[in-house]
């Protein structure tokens, strides 16, 4: 960042994009959420706190069909069909009415999964300016 010189225009605070990082807890495990808020869409990257990898990526957006409130979703990297990422992206897209990219790289079971979702949704609700 210090190497700005010559005819380079210095970087400035981004008006269009904002980003945020948070460490949350779900029962015994901790996880890291990185969020990038863009124009009309949001990207979430979720990892275990100890090691962050980018394995999966899914996208979901509200349907243009007025007859249905169900969002459409797809896995675009690291998996096929319905994945944890695409399920979460669809839920968030439905809740907030905007496009969500989600990279969920946690191994969730039926015990930790609901705890994780509750922790994430509560945090997003309390810090909505970072997400929607």
């Amino acid at each position, binding site marked *: 960042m210090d*190497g700005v010189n010559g005819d*380079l*225009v210095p970087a400035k605070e981004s008006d*269009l994009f904002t980003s945020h990082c948070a460490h949350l807890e779900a029962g015994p495990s901790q996880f890291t959420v990185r969020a990038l808020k863009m124009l009309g869409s949001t990207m979430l990257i979720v*990892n275990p706190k100890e090691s962050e*990898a980018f394995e999966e990526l899914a996208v979901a957006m509200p349907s243009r069909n007025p007859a249905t409130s169900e969002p459409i979703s797809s896995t675009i990297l690291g998996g096929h069909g319905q994945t944890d990422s695409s399920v979460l992206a669809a839920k968030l897209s439905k809740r907030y009415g905007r496009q969500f990219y989600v990279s969920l790289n946690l191994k969730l079971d039926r015990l930790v999964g609901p705890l994780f979702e509750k922790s994430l949704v509560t945090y997003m609700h309390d810090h909505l300016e970072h997400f929607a």
Partner: protein
Amino acid sequence: MTPAPDKPREIGFDRQFSVDVNGVPTEIVFHGFANKWFLVVTQLGKIPGFYNVHFDVKRDERVVPYLHGPVDNPEFHVSVPITMNCCLGLDTDETRSAIQFLVNRTGLHKCPTEFVLGLGLKVIDGPHLRALAKVLQEMVF
């Protein structure tokens, strides 16, 4: 990137800033994950598509054009061997050429194995790509 003096700006990635590239406002986000790098470069306010780019040779065995010869002479041109997969959005030759150019000209070639790139450029031509490569090289890598 210089934070505002009164209130340090929080960012959630290794790099996240806005910069003018050849007069075009450009958003850049970079983060190095354990298994791959993540880079967004867009002038459209959103991510129009994603490419997953895999290096065909190991990092230490790559011939990096701008370190090894006169890359501006077509006769001696070499490229860093990569394989690109378009995961989302329109897959065009122009975008693929832009990605290959950025890999050849910036620290992207130091990436260990693969990276995910969200690229949204309004204009893809020599002057704009050279300006973008300079910004990436000096402010990200």
